[in-house]
């Protein structure tokens, strides 16, 4: 198989480093993105279509990161793009918001089981931060309970005391408990009676570097019960998993109702919008917040979001993605077994997480991932992956073929 060359990506990175902090910052950069080793990974893209992207050197990748989630229907989906184009001709960022905003909110209220209203912003972090503000404003309490291994964005309240730029006061009201630990949950309520504004959690634990963990039977229901009993707001951060488990919300998938639920990523197939949806009793509080942004009410992403949700409904997309993900993961596990490797898949198949169980250092896993990327299958080392609707049977077949070749290379190197 041909191995990729990244000369142009590296030239672009040298340029980028001169004018951009760390060249590419954040999760899409080589450090935070865990490009291990870095020379296996492309740094910059040229274009994308369907389930593929092409890097700066023209290498094509079957993309299992989907821009870290937003690409759910396939890059450049014609229906979403057409809706966006039509709205762009009418106007996008205008002094008075477009009525697309109302239509989008109505559609979300109609689609998301726990939603009585929708509030729009740009990034997932805007939605989660809005949820925390709302919970604190409603309860007049300070403390927030998190589940260990959480990720809810990058605002100071989401970070940890040892992160650069974070001061103790930013996080001194954060309480962290283990996932799926009902006893810890009871203890935290007992020890902080009348002080907990909110519990915030992703629908299941999709932290990095460890197998993703689904909720234990009855866990969310107990969280819900305790929140109700203690007048604590229950926030579900569905930014990452939203619409890949259940179009009605991941709380619906797991059989409970959140008070506030946050969406972004897959909401508009790559158009820039996020949404915080909530229960009626929190609507007045949300109205009272001083919380807005220059582009939050832009009309084009609303039009794209409407088209995206309508198409996801038509396709029964969550089921389609889970079926594709399951087929892919079964193939990967089988390919690993041929070469004596124990590949574990965790999480929901449409958001699968991969780990080599026979390698506690993760180094062999990193070698295997790098050999896949060099051959045009874009996996990442320690983050869950994403399935999109454009992923074809042929893509899945090619991916398994590349994965098997990569396993063979790693096996030969370590035999």
């Amino acid at each position, binding site marked *: 198989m041909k191995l990729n060359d990244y000369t142009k990506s590296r030239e672009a990175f040298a340029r980028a480093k001169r004018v951009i902090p*760390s060249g590419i910052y954040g999760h899409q950069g080589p*450090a935070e993105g865990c490009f291990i080793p870095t020379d296996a990974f492309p740094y910059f893209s040229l274009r994308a279509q369907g389930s593929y992207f092409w890097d700066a050197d023209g290498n094509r990748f079957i993309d299992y990161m989907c821009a870290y989630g937003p690409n759910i229907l396939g890059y450049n989906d014609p229906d979403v793009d057409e809706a966006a184009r039509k709205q762009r001709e009418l106007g996008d960022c205008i002094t008075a918001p477009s009525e697309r905003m109302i239509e989008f909110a109505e559609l979300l209220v109609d689609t998301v089981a726990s939603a009585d209203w929708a509030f729009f912003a740009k990034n997932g972090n805007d939605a989660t931060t809005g949820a925390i503000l709302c919970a604190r404003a409603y309860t007049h309490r300070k403390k927030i309970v998190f589940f260990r291994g959480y990720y809810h964005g990058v605002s100071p309240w989401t970070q940890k005391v040892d992160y650069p730029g974070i001061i103790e006061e930013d996080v001194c009201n954060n309480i962290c408990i283990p996932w799926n630990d009902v006893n810890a949950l009871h203890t935290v309520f007992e020890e902080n009676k009348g002080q907990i504004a909110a519990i915030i959690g992703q629908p299941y634990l999709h932290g990095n570097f460890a197998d993703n963990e689904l909720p234990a039977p009855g866990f969310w229901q107990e969280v819900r019960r305790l929140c109700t009993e203690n007048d604590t707001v229950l926030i579900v951060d569905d930014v990452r998993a939203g619409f890949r488990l259940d179009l009605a919300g991941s709380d619906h998938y797991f059989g409970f109702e959140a008070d506030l639920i946050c969406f972004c990523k897959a909401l508009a197939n790559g158009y820039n919008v996020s949404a915080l949806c909530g229960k009626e009793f929190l609507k007045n509080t949300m109205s009272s917040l001083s919380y807005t942004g220059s582009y939050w009410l832009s009309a084009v992403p609303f039009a794209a979001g409407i088209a995206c949700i309508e198409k996801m409904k038509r396709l029964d997309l969550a089921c389609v993605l889970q079926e594709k993900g399951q087929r892919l993961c079964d193939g990967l596990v089988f390919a690993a077994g041929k070469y004596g490797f124990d590949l574990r898949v965790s999480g929901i198949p449409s958001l699968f997480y991969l780990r080599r169980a026979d390698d506690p250092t993760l180094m062999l896993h990193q070698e295997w991932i790098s050999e896949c990327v060099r051959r045009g299958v874009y996996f990442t080392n320690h983050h869950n992956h994403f399935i999109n609707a454009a992923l074809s049977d042929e893509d899945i077949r090619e991916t398994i073929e590349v994965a098997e070749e990569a396993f063979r290379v790693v096996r030969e190197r370590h035999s």
Partner: protein
Amino acid sequence: MTDTRTLSYINLHAILGSLPMLCALDSRAGEILGKKRMTVGISVSGGSAAPGAAGILSFENGRCTYTECAPGSPDVGDAKIVLTFPTPEKFNGMIDGTVTPIPKKGLLRAGFLTGPFTRLTDLLTAYLRPKDEDLADPAFFRISTMLMFHVIARSVCCIGNEDAVGRASASYIPDGAVLLAAGNEISFAVRAENHRLSLSPDPTEETITAEMRFADLLTARALFDGKINSVASVGDGLISIRGMIPQVDNINRILDRVALYLA
């Protein structure tokens, strides 16, 4: 942002704890010490609520060894010269040169402290706080950077164990051994066990679970001096990471605090 007790651990275990390496790298250190045999025990009180740092420096035939001791260890009292400090501030003052220690034991041997020991620590200071013109000499640069690397690796352990924010970082480090290396010139292994950090006496004996490797000593020096950033350097391949990344990631967060303490 920093605390004097953690600084006293760094000053003892990392700074004075680098004297053995100095003796191994620069023959002038051996000449200063001559064939003299001496042991110096140092014990620092951490205050009423916290343990303090303790260790023993042993000198013999121009060589030196350093042994970290448990807080309040009676072994310290067996040394020929014993220095005890009622507070971390007093000990840090000795390192800064603002406090003159009076031995609790071995007063008649105090000449070792004012003579060879002081000349040895002056030599160490020349390497750890180098002048730009000295760094232009490749041999000096090499020794200075290797010593600095050692101080930093040991400081990571001190901060991860003693500093409140450092302990928060260490609480996220899974058990294992993290190799910190500069090219093939020098390497250290930081061991993590139940979120307590220690420097391995021999990295080659460790089962390495993660690695942070600087391309060479130049890269290491540039990072230590704050001239390059670790995140940016991963992108251009000057720093490579692999293995159990939460170990590397959280050690990197502690490294940020090392700069605060050593400033």
